């Protein structure tokens, strides 16, 4: 019986790392992975979602509704940014670095001035449960399944719905899609908003477990970029395996040798995986199946 408890503990750590990597990368997978915009303000979308969630929950909204509010707020900010700034950068994606970095600074500093260096947080819901002699947070145990559900929903969205197919077509070849009657401008906008909203959702989901400060985006940004890049060109295909592999190694190293080795190990794994599979995981999968 003790064996099972140990096994669950190990599984929990892996799932926790997997959830963090997946959820960090989710919004960026759309904006960077699919659209190619190098969004250095990704952390700030997360921060926006988290802040709105916390403020709504403290104002009295039920937590799930507060999370929806956070997601919507990030989506709204994404819409405004896309319309006025990002739209002009699709032809020159390197310039999105400077643009999104500037947005990131303005957002972080702006939040500091407006809301102060920190706001009172909210409690993690759902309490704890025990497995053997160890106790775990129910909420955090559920997060990996939420992450998987989101991945599934995104897959369904991009493969089985009209919007999804149009979106992928536009990103792959905009002029062709336009020639076939797709409103590319609207598609770009909607896809970006989706990415921003997903980042906001990540912030909303992690808000009850973290401190709400303007710089909280920095906790996610490195993990999100490495997960998305390792997943390769086709993020729908590669994101889950990418998060799984990186999460497995990070959890194993942290469990065996501590947080320092876990952090360094994650980065070294990224280097090794990219060296071994220079087109990322999805490139590797697609090549194996004969596509290119």
């Amino acid at each position, binding site marked *: 019986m003790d064996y099972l408890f140990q096994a669950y503990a190990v599984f929990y750590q892996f799932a926790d790392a997997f959830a963090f990597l997946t959820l960090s990368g989710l919004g960026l997978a759309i904006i960077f992975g699919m659209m190619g915009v*190098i969004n*250095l303000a990704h952390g700030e979308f997360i921060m926006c979602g988290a802040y709105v969630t916390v403020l709504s929950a403290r104002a009295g909204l039920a937590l799930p509704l507060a999370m929806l509010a956070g997601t919507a707020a990030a989506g709204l900010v994404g819409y405004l940014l896309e319309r006025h*700034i990002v739209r*002009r*950068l699709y032809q*020159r994606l*390197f*310039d999105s*670095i*400077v*643009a999104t*970095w*500037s*947005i*990131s*600074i*303005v957002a*972080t*500093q*702006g939040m*500091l*001035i407006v809301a102060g260096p920190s706001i009172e947080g909210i409690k993690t819901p759902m309490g704890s449960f025990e497995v053997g002699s160890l106790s775990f947070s129910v909420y955090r145990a559920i997060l990996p399944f939420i992450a998987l559900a989101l991945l599934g929903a995104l897959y369904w969205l991009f493969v089985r719905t009209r919007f999804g197919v149009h979106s992928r077509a536009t990103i792959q070849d905009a002029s062709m899609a336009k020639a076939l009657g797709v409103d590319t401008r609207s598609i770009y906008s909607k896809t970006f908003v989706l990415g921003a909203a997903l980042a906001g959702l990540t912030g909303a989901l992690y808000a009850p477990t973290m401190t709400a400060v303007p710089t909280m985006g*920095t906790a996610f*940004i*490195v993990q999100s*970029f*490495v997960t998305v*890049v*390792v997943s390769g060109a086709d993020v729908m295909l590669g994101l889950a395996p990418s998060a799984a592999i990186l999460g497995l190694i990070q959890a194993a190293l942290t469990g065996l040798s501590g947080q*320092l080795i876990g*952090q*360094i190990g994650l*980065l*070294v794994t*990224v*280097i090794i995986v*990219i*060296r071994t599979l*220079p087109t*990322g995981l999805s490139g590797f999968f697609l090549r194996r199946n004969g596509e290119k």
Partner: protein
Amino acid sequence: MRRFLNLLNGPRTLGRGLQFWVGFCVVFVIAASMPTFTDSFAVTNLTFFLVWTFMALGLSVMWGYGGILSFGQTAFFGLAGYTYGVVSINLGDAHGLTWVALLVALLLPVLLALVLGYFMFYGGIRDVFVGIVTLSVTLVFETFMAQTAGPEWTIGDARLNGFNGMSGMPPLTINGGESNLIFDGPPLYWFVLALVLVCYLGLRLLVNSRFGRVLVAIRGNPDRVEMLGYNVRMYQLSAFAIGGGMAGLSGVLYTLWGAYITPSSMGLNAAALPIIWVAAGGRKDLTAVLVATVALTWVSQQLAIYGNQYALILMGFLLLCVVLGAPEGFVVSLVMFFKRKLALRKQLA
């Protein structure tokens, strides 16, 4: 001589002809005579601005001319700084040994760049993956160095001292029997200025040469260049090594300027800065990058002094306007703007 002038005035850099070089000389003379008519603070402050130009120039060669976006130049910066610290603390400052430390500190980043570049380019890593791999490298350095606080992390006499940073390294010294020339204040300023001149001119020659032509072709389409028979990976490796070496030069000079080096110089924020300067100024041109780096570091300092907590917001908006309004970089756009104005005036005349 003619060939030298042609290279200096070549097609891949802005500004050519007699008038440009006269203007350049004027500016250089003004800069060199700065210490005679400004105070000591202005001199050290200017040295500080110039220190960053090397990293930016290297990044311009690598990214602007070669199309290789490395997010980890700060790894070389930090490596050079720490190497100078370790070597100079152990060797001391007698007998001109600080110069040995300087040379070693410049050598190690180049070696690292060669190793890392070989690993990447000969392993088929390209585009955004290069950025992620280099970013990971610099973050590994930072994370590792931040925890080297304990007494066991000592190389010879030099304690790495972890997150608190290493200090106490001697400045560059020329030993002359009775009195030594210590490179601090004006001597350091002139030394850095001379290095700026040498590197700027040297890189101008390089990018306007055949090497530069192939490099720019690789930026456009690496496969095509490969098929024309060039060893593309060798060119990429060379550009990467140059970038790494220049970043190392910045690192050593920063350490000399402040007698201090810390792991946060290798962190995420520090890594983004050179990319911002180069992108905002016009990465495809050396002169633009040089001007932009000095301008932006100066502007951000002024904003921090006079803008209080709004400094960062103003900086962000400024950069946003630059990137939206001047897609080629603000220096390049300014130059193009004036050129067009003059061409128009000539036409109408």
